[in-house]
């Protein structure tokens, strides 16, 4: 019988610092065993438990898209014991991984719809997965317009800068990048995500909104989506809670009777409305 | 050839006096037993009893805390505060049944290379008399296996 607590081995293929404050680092991992690679099937929005033996485990959203074969990417914010250890990993180091866990974004519902992606700060990771997945030639025709609004506090704190430049050039994807405070080299938008959303004012018709960011951003963005007449059941978000097992056994990540690890982390606002505000 | 047991002793030395004293012992080529491992701390008052307990739990056979002589503390009163902590901790450990000699204290100034060597010698002798630490030491794999490889419950 498969032991769901036993990590499978992966290797750090590439490690790169994302932001100027050096607090965010992206690890690109590749599978050590062929069969693990084959068995690993996921959709954007799912997450994994990364484990460093001797330090522990922590959950991270998968930042790469299923269309990027052979490897997985995670962007990690240095905060506690495990994340610090992950920051110290060198290329070639072995790491344990459990997953994919959670439900992921409701890709099937997105068929034939416009997609509005709103991201803030380093919560952009699983949104990157979603954008890369949807804009992949194989999938692009499955959805209509894709609009991405992405904000960070400062230009230096934006994730995936190279990709952002590439996306900007694409005609089949509308990207609006904004920062709270620009610097002298910054030529893009300056402004908070909710205000930029108001400015861009995408139509809510036939559109799903996926929003992910710090609580304060969500708090102010959500009312704007309401004024844009997005119904609750078409707004999705990905929640974070302290997790351990990742499979709905250990108890701590529940919101009401649902577990963020097993029944989430992606929830619609229609769902969240019915649950206690325990997050 | 059978190796004789040598105690492992952890020494917390205050930066301003005892550490310099140990240094002096070294530069003056005064010999002292090689059983001690030194950790330099800013002041003997900095020693959190947790440090001592953690050392003992980790299998250290003895702990030496050494600071400036009364009145000489770089921070005026750190060693006085340390003295009270030492006195109570030592008594408490003895009361519990952990040999009091495993935790020792000394005043060694920066000029007392000779005294440092003598203190270390005495501590090593005391600990040798006691033998290796048994009580309170965490066994390497303390998740002891019960019958047939089954883990013992609490």
């Amino acid at each position, binding site marked *: 019988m498969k032991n769901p607590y036993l990590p499978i*081995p992966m290797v750090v293929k590439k490690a790169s610092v994302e932001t100027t404050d050096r607090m965010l680092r992206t690890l690109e991992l590749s599978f050590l065993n062929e069969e693990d690679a084959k068995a690993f099937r996921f959709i954007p929005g799912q997450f994994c438990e990364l484990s460093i033996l*001797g330090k522990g485990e922590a959950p991270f959203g998968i930042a790469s898209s299923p269309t990027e074969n052979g490897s997985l990417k995670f962007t990690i914010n240095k905060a506690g014991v495990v994340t610090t250890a992950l920051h110290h990993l060198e290329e070639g180091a072995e790491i344990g991984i459990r997953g994919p866990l959670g439900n992921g974004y409701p890709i099937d519902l997105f068929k034939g719809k416009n997609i509005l992606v709103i991201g803030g700060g380093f919560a952009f990771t699983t949104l990157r997965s979603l954008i890369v997945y949807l804009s992949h030639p194989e999938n692009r025709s499955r959805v209509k317009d894709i609009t991405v609004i992405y904000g960070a506090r400062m230009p230096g704190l934006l994730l995936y800068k190279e990709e952002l430049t590439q996306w900007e050039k694409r005609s089949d994807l509308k990207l609006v990048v904004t920062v709270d405070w620009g610097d002298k080299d910054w030529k893009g938008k300056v402004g908070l995500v909710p205000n930029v959303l108001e400015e861009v004012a995408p139509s809510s018709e036939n559109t799903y909104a996926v929003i992910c960011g710090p609580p304060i951003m969500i708090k102010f963005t959500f009312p704007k989506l309401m004024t844009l007449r997005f119904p609750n059941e078409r707004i999705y978000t990905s929640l974070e809670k302290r997790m351990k097992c990742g499979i709905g056994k250990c108890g701590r990540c529940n919101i009401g009777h649902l577990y963020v690890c097993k029944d989430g982390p992606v929830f619609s606002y229609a769902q969240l409305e019915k649950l206690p505000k325990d997050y | 050839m059978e190796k004789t047991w040598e105690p492992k002793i952890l020494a917390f030395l205050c930066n301003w006096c005892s550490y310099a004293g140990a240094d002096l012992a070294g530069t003056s080529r005064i010999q002292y037993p090689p059983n001690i491992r030194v950790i330099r701390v800013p002041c003997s008052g900095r020693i959190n009893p947790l440090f001592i307990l953690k050392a003992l739990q980790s299998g250290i056979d003895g702990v030496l805390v050494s600071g400036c002589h009364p009145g000489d503390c770089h921070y005026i009163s750190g060693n006085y505060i340390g003295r009270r902590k030492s006195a109570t901790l030592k008594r408490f450990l003895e009361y519990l049944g952990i040999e009091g000699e495993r935790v020792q204290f000394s005043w060694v100034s920066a000029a007392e290379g000779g005294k440092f060597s003598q203190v270390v010698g005495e501590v090593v002798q005391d600990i040798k008399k006691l033998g290796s630490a048994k009580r309170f030491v965490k066994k390497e794999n303390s998740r002891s296996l019960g019958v047939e490889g089954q883990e013992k419950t609490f």
Partner: protein
Amino acid sequence: MKLKLDKKDFKPFLQSLIEEYDLFAPVQLVEGVSVFKKIDHPDEVDLSTPNPQKPAKELFFPQSETMFRYEKAGKKNQMTSMEEVKRERILFGARPCDIEAISMLEKVFVGEGDTDVYFLEKRKKTTIMGLGCNHPLSTCFCSSAGGDPFLRAGSDLFFVDLGEAYFVELLTEKGMAFHKNKFFKEADPKDLTLVKEFEEKAFEKVGYAIPVEGIEKRLDLMGESSFWDRIHEKCIGCRICTYLCPTCHCFDIVDEGEHQRGQRVRNWDSCLSPLYSLETSGHNPRPTCRERTRQRLMHKFNYFPKNFGQVACVGCGRCILYCPVHFDIRQAIIWTSPKRPKRFGGGTI
């Protein structure tokens, strides 16, 4: 199949079990404190006290258990899973409340989603010999919580203390394996009457006073009720009620040991601890005792029923007996109900 075991044969019977199995039964550690422990000699077994402090869940979900050991050789990690139970085990002397709780844990660990191999392995390799509860305490309310002092469900064999002998019932396939046990004799009708008598007496004593029924629906409407503002006041946030609860099953996963070798273990955890839900960012979705107490009660009486169709409380009364500030879960249940029964219990002081 209905059998009996004479008291004079009791110890030899236990001895015969010890020879073939790992036998776990209540053992007194000091006067008044007992736990389920592995037995080396029949004399250790102590059935004189009511439920041991720690419930029998410990056998299947230990307070601390190694999930796997790891060792690093160069860059490679070697991991060895530790779920295997080498010797068949017997749990003897657990009361129906503890046994019912084990079935609840089974729903969580095995029933849905991924299978918890550590729990399953222990469950599969354990034969449960339940013991009828002749003398429920005044704090017991198993009948109100959906069980009863003589509930057979979950037991493979069921024992009832008849004074001179134990009445023994073989209930499952695992239980039937004992039907040729040399210490068991055919039970006579007189014994059956006696069992009935004991049952009736116990049923009457436990009663149905606590309005557990319908609590899930009542709590649905109480998510933000002022009820929670007061009920937590005396709680000091220790973990006694959750650790001693036979149905509580939260755990924490941590690594022990060094870089080179060590083990990943899981330890019991408690929703009453602030650290339980504290996120690395410093945000705590359940920042005060109010939210944590609500989580404990809501999980038992609302969330768990939603997921598994029954309340996560078996009415064993441990949380009432051992709470240092005398929090009474029965009273909490009563307060949710509009039909408040008159005062219960003998607390005249």
